[in-house]
């Protein structure tokens, strides 16, 4: 019976990690529904970008208040995870504070975890106030109702509860240590929880042990639950920010990719020796669809972008179309892409690995033409994203579909394109008049 807690712990840990692996494999499967793109180049630059942008949070601090608070929570998250390692070992072996033998260094560790935990609590409270009391504009956009709003707050509540459990656990431990309770070795320094411990004064040893154990168990179970919550949440960014910044665009932002399939067509048209009546070769592949109308037409990097988005809305708040009241919100483009991808993924799960047409697609059912046509392609959203997401590339791919597959551009644009086609300028001027300005004085 003495091994019962160890066994329960091992089972919980295995379940937690097992579900997490299952979530990750689902995530990988969904992302791989995207078209292949070659991003194996420039490894050194990519690592540098990842180190600078994700690890170094360089773009977060462009907005100093949110950036500073975020760095606190981020550092807290990483550092406090060292404590989780100890908790896991203790849980499996039935030991208590196994790293205590580190002596003075252990005191420094626990002390700094406590200070970080306190700072995280402060940051999380400020974040909550920004979302719910100050109601910052970018958190109040139409796409931020329902689940996205709940999700944003839930994350804050979970982090708050986890930090309180951590401090409660330490406070009870501290109290037990000073009472000289068996099993509770003198270890650690408790710059924050010692103040909480005053609440426990006068409590019996057995009640304190109960408090300490409850907090300890809830803390680790909470962490395992949170780990599995990620897949369903915008909070996935804590993992995906790293690959996403690694695979982020390395070219000039103004360089939009040239569609290779179109290049083939154009080459054929320009080749005087090509036979215009040639029948396609036997068994030739069906011509590719131009542009994107659904998530499977996008590249896997664009799909990774969608899962990485944490809905901070910096893109939307910088978007000139959104600022002037248009329907377009780059954040919504990313959220819609993820939602549709999830829907496609669930469809595949339900139908034994095969996607069964559901009569829906990203274009129309999620993203409307009006949103797409409001974009000025100014790259403000791309510049604003702290984790190298590129909403603009999705907008452009979908415009390409609208024009090349559906011929459904706004009529003004059809006129413009007709002019380019006929006289080499977006306006109806004769190409032969291109140099007339020289004579006009």
């Amino acid at each position, binding site marked *: 019976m003495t091994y019962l807690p160890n066994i329960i712990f091992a089972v919980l840990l295995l379940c937690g990690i097992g579900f997490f692996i299952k979530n990750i494999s689902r995530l990988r499967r969904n992302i791989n529904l995207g078209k292949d793109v070659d991003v194996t180049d420039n490894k050194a630059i990519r690592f540098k970008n990842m180190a600078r942008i994700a690890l170094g949070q360089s773009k977060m601090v462009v907005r100093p208040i949110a950036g500073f608070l975020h760095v606190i929570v981020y550092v807290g998250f990483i550092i406090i995870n060292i404590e989780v390692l100890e908790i896991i070992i203790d849980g499996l072996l039935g030991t208590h504070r196994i790293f205590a033998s580190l002596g003075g260094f252990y005191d420094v560790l626990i002390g700094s975890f406590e200070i970080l935990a306190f700072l995280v609590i402060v940051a999380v409270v400020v974040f909550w106030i920004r979302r719910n009391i100050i109601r910052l504009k970018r958190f109040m956009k139409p796409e931020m109702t329902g689940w996205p709003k709940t999700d944003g707050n839930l994350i804050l509540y979970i982090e708050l509860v986890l930090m309180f459990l951590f401090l409660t656990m330490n406070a009870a431990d501290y109290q037990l240590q000073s009472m000289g309770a068996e099993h509770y070795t003198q270890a650690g320094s408790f710059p924050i929880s010692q103040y909480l411990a005053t609440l426990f004064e006068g409590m019996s040893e057995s009640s304190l042990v109960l408090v300490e154990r409850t907090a300890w168990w809830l803390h680790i179970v909470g962490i395992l639950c949170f780990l599995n919550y990620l897949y369903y949440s915008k909070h996935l960014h804590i993992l995906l920010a790293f690959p996403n910044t690694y695979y982020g665009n390395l070219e000039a932002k103004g360089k939009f990719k040239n569609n290779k399939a179109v*290049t083939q067509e154009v080459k054929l048209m320009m080749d005087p020796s090509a036979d215009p009546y040639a029948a396609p070769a036997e068994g030739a592949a069906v011509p590719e669809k131009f542009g994107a109308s659904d998530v499977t037409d996008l590249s896997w990097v664009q799909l990774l972008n969608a899962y990485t988005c944490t809905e901070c809305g910096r893109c939307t708040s910088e978007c*000139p179309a959104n600022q002037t009241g248009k329907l377009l919100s780059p954040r919504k483009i990313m959220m819609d892409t993820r939602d549709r991808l999830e829907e496609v993924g669930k469809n595949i799960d339900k139908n034994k690995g095969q996607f069964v047409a559901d009569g829906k697609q990203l274009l129309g059912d999620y993203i409307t033409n009006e949103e797409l046509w409001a974009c*000025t392609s100014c790259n403000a959203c791309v510049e604003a994203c702290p984790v190298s997401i590129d909403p603009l590339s999705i907008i452009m791919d979908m*415009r390409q579909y609208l024009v090349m597959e559906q011929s459904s*551009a706004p009529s003004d644009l059809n006129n413009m394109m007709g002019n380019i086609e006929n006289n080499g300028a977006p306006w109806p001027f004769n190409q032969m008049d*291109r140099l007339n300005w020289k004579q006009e004085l």
Partner: protein
Amino acid sequence: MQTELKVPTMAELSAAGQKPEVLFWVGCAGSFDDRAKKITKAFVKILNKAKVSFAVLGTEESCTGDPAKRAGNEFLFQMQAVTNIEVMNAYEIKKVVTACPHCFNTLKNEYPELGGNYEVVHHTQFLKQLLDEGKITMEGGQFKGKRITFHDPCYLGRANNVYEAPRELIRKLDAELVEMKNCKKKGLCCGAGGAQMFKEPENGNKDINIERTEQAIETKPDIIAAGCPFCNTMMTDGVKNKEKEGSVAVLDIAEMIASAEDL
């Protein structure tokens, strides 16, 4: 004093067995738009004054395809690109300068994959170089002490990270350069990019150029400097809408340099 502009075409030079150092890509706006033609002429005046060996394609130039690509018509874009590249490669062009950031971006970034490899510079970069080489001198003159704010064109700034060349030119005019609340990397679009120039805006509560013009006017400028014919149109419209055309001028940097030099 108005001397005639010297604007050789590639065809003329080629017939005479000559090759210019640089091709001036005029662009559709620079060729046809009444406001932008003034920029073209101002730039040519400077080129003439600095005795730059240049030529234009003239009637052999055609739209780069930028608005078609941004509107989603990849096929039309690539047809334009391949046609232009054929012409430019036939003339063995090495260097291109243009006063339009959209042409600049497309020629620089999107043509190489299709076979067009040139050194492409924006006219503000080119002018900065002429200045550094002492080929033009700039005395502030009429711009001395004027408050000038520079509107970053998206396709020059964010798209290609050119922020300093236009600003250095403004400073050289002895003018007081003032920045808008959104500038450089955070510059706000004028509303014309992505083929918006050629269509009505979607429903909203404001036009983008009005928003941007308000930001510019907040700096209390005498001049809003631009480096793009489309931004120029949008900002000029914005200033008119705000009924400020009497006190705020919208000028391209080339125009300011040309008039500072009294060309």
